[in-house]
């Protein structure tokens, strides 16, 4: 049995799909029966073909114990599913489940896990081998923490909660004032209510080593990683580089020797471990920071960085192989005990989503906040760094102050923009010394950055006059620019689209500059990693001009292999990166080939779901007899595993980088529809450059994406959409809103994942929105749509081949319209739509697909408004590409939709594919779709709120979730409850429920409350809800709102002062106090507009702190109550996909 890591959350992302998938493959190859448990349907590992028994079930001890009882596995391998799997293994050991069923724990034993994870034990173990850890104390309460301070522990202290992932809940206490707050947060976050207070090594250099050990005690070091950011910033939030750059061999060997001692002392029997060190160059002191006795995000990075598949080897070691027995796939000649050595430089850059959480603390600390990362490979640090910078695909541009002092002050605070700021500071002549003092970033790196700027200046010196773009003040332009400002972001700008590049320079003079630029200068710039777009900006010409000149001069990239051995042996696995070097190793193969473009770094709105689609496209294209070529820059993914595709290019997904690969490979075509918005963004440029786009044509993409043209399509088909308009100024926006009526949904025209999208209820709010949040301009219009209140949302994924349409599924959202579809729970099949609505939705979907000319996948979002006159279906959005829900649909229905789409792209006709439900649907005169489902599947979103203290937890039109889970059951309530449990919300079966809803929800709240009362729950309500429920014969207890309590307290204190009596203010109890005291088991709190927000906010944050499920929409509350009722006294049943769809999988 293999455990996955569950939903994608900050600190635990698709790297564990990568490791788990590798492990599944290995175990199947070795002839084992594999039972897999993972609640995340968007993973490749949960494809039925990757195990014999695939359980998409909640990763909680009682559910996994049920699966163990049912499947009776011989062994449990928990080291490939992140901290979640490791914690489960600990729980199942401690509760005796493993012993009861005779299950052997392999990979890491219980004692080793404890030695590595329990902080005091780790500390003692390190001391026993002569290694130091920062002086520290483990405390279980605030009082113990104070005692530790008193006994000599010195500030600043790092607070680390035990057993949490990504350092979640931790922080830095640098003064006595914040000490209590940080410690309390840490205690709350730890499942064992235990934190480590640790002397700070902030500013020391940070290194990581990836180590593997086998049963015979052979140990190898796979890779060293250096954090460019010093200690104090979580490694997941640091730019890191492999191999380490700044230590001498003597210093490096010291880390190496220590790593060997550590893995032995901890007693990890087999597999990979990650060890983190802090090193002070001043004192030569070395400290061990932590050790993960499992594969990790860093090991995924190390695997991609070296070509050494750590997870795969870990799985083999776990079943008894030794390192010298396992051949290296890449060289075929060397064994796995050959330590990788590399002849390039790898840079990883995190990707954050602070723009989604304006109230979040955007400073980087020991508490990980990034949602994704990219990796770039170059022959030198400068090349890799610049490639990594442009792989970020930023869509928000940093604000950079004009004043250098202010700039340095900003640089001193670790932030998402730190490196953009540093480059700008160097550009302005700020000394490396002062940047070093502000950041403690090793001057070696700063010198590298200086050399990049030096090369920039050299290029600029060839410009006829300073480029137009350079003379703009850095703060010019709207805050929400789709593209990074040229002078600011450097390489980040390279991902920007071509037209923007073309628009910003005066071509005539720029072209003259390009003409006088010597070939050698251009070649040198390319060797340093400058993109054509960046060079164009520096010279003041256009990107196509630079490209043309470059090709004329024969300056094209050479592709080099990643081979684990620095060319000492021949490499057989084609895994490539570009560099402007001489010898190209990636000569095109004989077979016809297709390129599949990946989705780049994970971000909110574009995550693992798209990687899932890409991997399926690759698998299917290989089956269709093509060589499938993958291009991606996300090291966490399955798509960037070298044995997923026939050829892997680890490259940025910009127009230039992709076109270079196309020119090298000369493929049949490029597939852009599986990687989300990233490939779609460059599809037009590729098309214009003459690159064949396979599947849906560029013309069809444009038809769907251009609002005016799409309006014509709707009109032609007689379909309805909410009234809308496109505003190029504030006045236009207000006029449109007046015309179509409030409320309106306002959003910038170029966004992803509902970025900056807002529901606006009145003219004043729209004015505020249009002036402060998003500035409407001719270049960046704002879209204004009528918002359909109280409507239901419906999502459809379908495949079209030009003649026929096959519906993957019609999904009903649990939350009402207004909550971003990515954040809404949804259910297959729809529960309350009725067959007639479903039929109409199917037909509209088919009509749209055929009219647009979709070839492959398409997603449509509808809103259903039901009135007394009947139901109206509105088309909200059409995406002519694979969507976020494709994996969920595939798992829920057993139809691998992305593969079906790929078959269509390869030229097959849907009607020849023998798809489930085809005949039956056609016979019934319906659009083909599977119609024999006997179970219900619910997808629930997983939100990162616990990571962002201070951020409100309500849902809205801007997507905020990082991941998803799926619950499967015989009915909607059962499936919904499982989905909640999998998402981390355990619905109570008894206890106290607090209900407080907005006026619009009061009526519905009556039903919710009466069911709960009938089931024996104690009900609490604040005034308004209390009165409503009371009028309907339900008798909740009245509690004070938070704001009422504050007022009452003040009044009591004032009274006591005035009258000299006892201050009874502290006896006043509000709902927040009750939640904090652990007296509430479920919170139902729907926000009531802006005014009363503060109250709801305090309630929801309190619930989050205490881990009490908090439901913020009435629809979800209704579903939850149904779920509570359905499971009342019942037993959880577990089902695997192979039982749902006999004949699929193994």
């Amino acid at each position, binding site marked *: 049995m293999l455990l996955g890591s569950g939903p994608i959350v900050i600190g635990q992302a698709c790297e564990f799909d990568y490791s788990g998938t590798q492990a599944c493959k290995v175990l199947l190859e070795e002839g084992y029966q594999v039972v897999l448990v993972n609640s995340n349907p968007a993973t490749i590992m949960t494809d039925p073909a990757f195990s014999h028994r695939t359980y998409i079930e909640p990763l909680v001890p009682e559910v996994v114990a049920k699966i163990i009882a049912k499947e009776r596995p011989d062994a449990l391998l928990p080291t490939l599913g992140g901290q979640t799997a490791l914690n489960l293994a600990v729980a199942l050991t401690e509760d005796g489940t493993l012993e009861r069923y005779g299950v052997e724990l392999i990979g890491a034993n219980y004692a080793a896990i404890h030695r590595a994870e329990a902080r005091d034990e780790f500390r003692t173990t390190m001391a026993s081998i002569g290694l130091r850890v920062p002086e520290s104390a483990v405390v279980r309460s605030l009082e113990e923490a104070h005692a530790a301070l008193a006994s000599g522990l010195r500030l600043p202290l790092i607070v680390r909660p035990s057993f949490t992932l990504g350092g979640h809940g931790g922080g830095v206490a640098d003064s006595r004032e914040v000490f209590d707050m940080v410690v309390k947060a840490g205690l709350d976050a730890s499942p064992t209510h235990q934190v480590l207070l640790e002397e700070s090594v902030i500013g020391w250099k940070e290194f990581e080593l990836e180590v593997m050990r086998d049963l*015979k*005690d*052979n140990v*190898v*070091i796979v890779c060293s990683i250096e954090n460019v950011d010093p200690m104090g910033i979580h490694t997941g939030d640091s730019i890191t580089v492999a*191999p380490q*750059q*700044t*230590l*001498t*061999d*003597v*210093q*490096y060997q010291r880390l190496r020797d220590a790593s060997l001692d550590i893995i032995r002392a901890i007693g990890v029997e087999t597999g990979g471990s990650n060890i983190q060190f802090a090193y002070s*160059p*001043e004192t*030569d002191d070395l400290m061990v920071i932590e050790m993960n006795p499992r594969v990790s995000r860093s090991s995924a990075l190390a695997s991609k960085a070296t070509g050494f598949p750590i997870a795969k080897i870990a799985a083999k070691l776990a079943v008894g192989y*030794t*390192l*010298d027995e396992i051949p290296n796939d890449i060289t075929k*000649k*060397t*064994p796995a*005990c*050959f*330590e*990788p*050595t*590399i*002849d*390039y*430089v790898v840079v990883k850059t995190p990707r954050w989503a602070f723009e989604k959480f304006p109230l979040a603390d955007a400073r980087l600390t020991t508490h990980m906040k990034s949602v994704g990362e990219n990796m770039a490979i170059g*022959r*030198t*640090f*400068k090349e890799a760094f610049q490639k990594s910078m442009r792989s970020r695909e930023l869509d928000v541009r940093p604000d950079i102050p004009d004043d250098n002092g202010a700039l340095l002050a900003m640089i001193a605070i670790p932030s998402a923009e730190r490196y953009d700021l540093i480059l700008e500071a160097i550009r302005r002549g700020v000394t490396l010394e002062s940047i070093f003092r502000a950041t403690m970033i*090793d*001057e*070696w790196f700063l*010198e590298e950055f200086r*050399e990049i700027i030096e090369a920039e200046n050299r290029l600029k010196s060839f410009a006829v006059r300073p480029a137009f773009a350079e003379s703009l003040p850095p703060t010019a332009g709207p805050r929400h620019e789709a593209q990074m400002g040229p002078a600011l972001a450097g390489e980040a700008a390279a991902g920007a689209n071509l037209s923007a590049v073309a628009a910003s320079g005066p071509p005539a003079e720029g072209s003259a500059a390009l003409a006088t630029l010597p070939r050698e200068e251009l070649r*040198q710039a390319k*060797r*340093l990693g400058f993109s054509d777009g960046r060079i164009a900006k520096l010279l003041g010409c256009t990107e196509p001009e630079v490209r043309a000149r470059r090709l004329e001069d024969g300056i094209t990239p*050479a592709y*080099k292999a990643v081979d684990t*051995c*620095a*060319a*000492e*042996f*021949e490499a057989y696995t084609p895994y490539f990166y570009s560099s402007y*070097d*001489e*010898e190209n*190793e990636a000569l095109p193969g004989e077979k016809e080939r297709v390129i599949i473009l990946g989705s780049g770094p994970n971000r909110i709105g574009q995550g693992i779901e798209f990687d899932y689609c890409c991997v399926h496209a690759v698998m299917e294209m290989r089956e269709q007899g093509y060589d499938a070529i993958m291009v991606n820059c996300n090291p966490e993914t399955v798509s960037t595993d070298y044995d997923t595709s026939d050829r892997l290019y680890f490259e940025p997904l910009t127009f230039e980088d992709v076109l270079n690969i196309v020119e090298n490979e000369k493929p049949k075509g490029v597939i852009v529809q599986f990687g989300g918005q990233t490939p779609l963004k460059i599809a037009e440029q590729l098309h214009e450059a003459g690159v064949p786009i396979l599947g849906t044509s560029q013309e069809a993409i444009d038809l769907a994406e251009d609002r005016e043209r799409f309006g014509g399509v709707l009109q032609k088909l007689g379909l309805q959409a909410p009234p809308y308009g496109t505003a190029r100024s504030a006045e236009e926006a207000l006029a449109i809103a007046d015309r179509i009526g409030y409320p309106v949904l306002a959003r910038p025209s170029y966004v992803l994942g509902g970025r900056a999208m807002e529901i606006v209820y009145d003219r004043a709010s729209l004015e505020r929105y249009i002036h402060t949040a998003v500035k409407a301009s001719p270049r960046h219009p704002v879209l204004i749509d009528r918002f359909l209140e109280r409507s239901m949302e419906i999502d459809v994924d379908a495949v079209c081949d030009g003649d026929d349409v096959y519906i993957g599924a019609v999904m009903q959202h649990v939350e009402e319209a207004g909550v971003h579809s990515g954040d809404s729970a949804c259910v297959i099949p729809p529960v309350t739509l009725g067959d007639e609505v479903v039929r109409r939705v199917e037909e509209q979907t088919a009509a749209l697909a055929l009219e647009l000319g979709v070839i492959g996948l398409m997603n449509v979002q509808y809103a259903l408004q039901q009135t007394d006159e009947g139901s109206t279906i509105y088309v909200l959005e059409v995406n002519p590409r694979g969507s976020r829900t494709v994996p969920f649909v595939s798992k829920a229905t057993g139809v691998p939709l992305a593969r079906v789409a790929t078959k269509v792209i390869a030229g097959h006709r849907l009607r020849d594919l023998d798809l489930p439900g085809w005949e039956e649907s056609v016979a019934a005169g319906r659009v083909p779709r599977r119609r024999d489902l006997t179970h219900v599947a619910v997808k629930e979103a997983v939100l990162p709120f616990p990571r962002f203290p201070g951020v409100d937890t309500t849902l809205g039109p801007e997507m905020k979730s990082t991941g998803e889970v799926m619950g499967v059951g015989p009915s909607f309530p059962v499936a919904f409850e499982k989905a909640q449990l999998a998402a981390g919300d355990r619905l109570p079966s008894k206890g106290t429920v607090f209900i407080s809803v907005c006026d619009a929800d009061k009526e519905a709240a009556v039903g919710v409350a009466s069911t709960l009362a009938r089931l024996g729950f104690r009900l609490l309500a604040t005034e308004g809800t209390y009165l409503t429920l009371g009028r309907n014969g339900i008798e909740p207890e009245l509690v004070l709102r938070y704001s009422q309590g504050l007022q009452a307290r003040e009044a009591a204190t004032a009274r006591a002062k005035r009258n000299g009596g006892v201050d009874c203010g502290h006896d006043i109890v509000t709902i927040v106090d009750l939640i904090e005291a652990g007296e509430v088991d479920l919170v139902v709190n729907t926000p009531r507009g802006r005014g009363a927000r503060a109250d709801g906010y305090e309630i929801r944050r309190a619930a989050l702190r205490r881990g009490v499920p908090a439901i913020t929409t009435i629809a979800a509350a209704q579903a939850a109550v149904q779920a509570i009722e359905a499971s009342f006294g019942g037993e959880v049943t577990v089902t695997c996909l192979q039982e749902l769809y006999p004949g699929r999988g193994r």
Partner: protein
Amino acid sequence: MYRSEIPGYVVLKDGTVYQGFGFAAPGRVFGEIVFNTGMTGYQEVITDPSYYGQMVTFTYPMNGNYGAADHLLESGAVHSRAIVVREAKNTNYNRTCPDAWVEWLHHQGVTGVGGVDTRALTRRIRAHGAMTACVAAGPDLKVNDLLEETRAYPSLSGRDLVRAVTCSEPYVVATSGARYHVVAFDYGMKRSILKNLLEVGCRVTVVPAAFTPRQVLELEPDGVFLSNGPGDPAPVEYAVASLRGLLGQVPVFGICLGHQLMALAVGFSTYKLKFGHRGINHPVKNYLKDAIEITSQNHGFAVAPPGGRPDSGTGVIWLPSTRATWSSSRTSVRYRSATST
């Protein structure tokens, strides 16, 4: 340094030319070109006497990252007189290294060529074998002349390079409380070996390669150590002869060239590897302990696996003790006196 105005060339005997930029000391250096795959330890490599007569290209593209320092030297001189890199750094931000790399190289008179596609060069060497080459930096270089001279330059095989790097006089190195006395034949010994011997409690008398058995035995050693060294073991006949006189008299152990000389002394033969093993990541299987050990390697020659039993006249039997796990080259062999078993 990622560029300079000085032209630089790497010219291989087979006519392949790599163009780059020159750095450190201008000059024209001839010798055998080999590659090293270590990602650290560049200063140790070029000061290791085993590289005498060779020029190194580093597969790791960022060369000189942490600077240079005396405590990293493996001998008193630079033996690889030229290096070929992708990029050379000339900074000294590592506190333990006072010198900047390029400056240090310049001071040592080492010629550097940078900006070269070192991976292409490495692949060439892997495919065609380590070969004679010229590494040249400076103005007014003519590639055709360089190629002609390269072709005329003698190969390493059959040349006794030990003579050039061995010490001229014996000397003693000891720390207090040494338990053993070891005589170390200096065929081009690395300092770290000496350091290791001292650390395990040996007093070491380092002697020139041409020391005779009698001279050694007069020192009454507990054991004799045969050091590493450059080039082909076969022409170092005087050393082999000397070893024949010592085997059986006193415990003898050696590594690298020393081990190859010992193999010759017991009647095995040696041969030139196509491109050698140079790096710090090579696993070796220790059959005695049934364990994998990661080693640093630096050799271009190897002991031939014996076709049959070794020359019975030597009175030793051959036991396989360790073996490189990826090739058949013997990395070490134990020799035991037949009479003592």
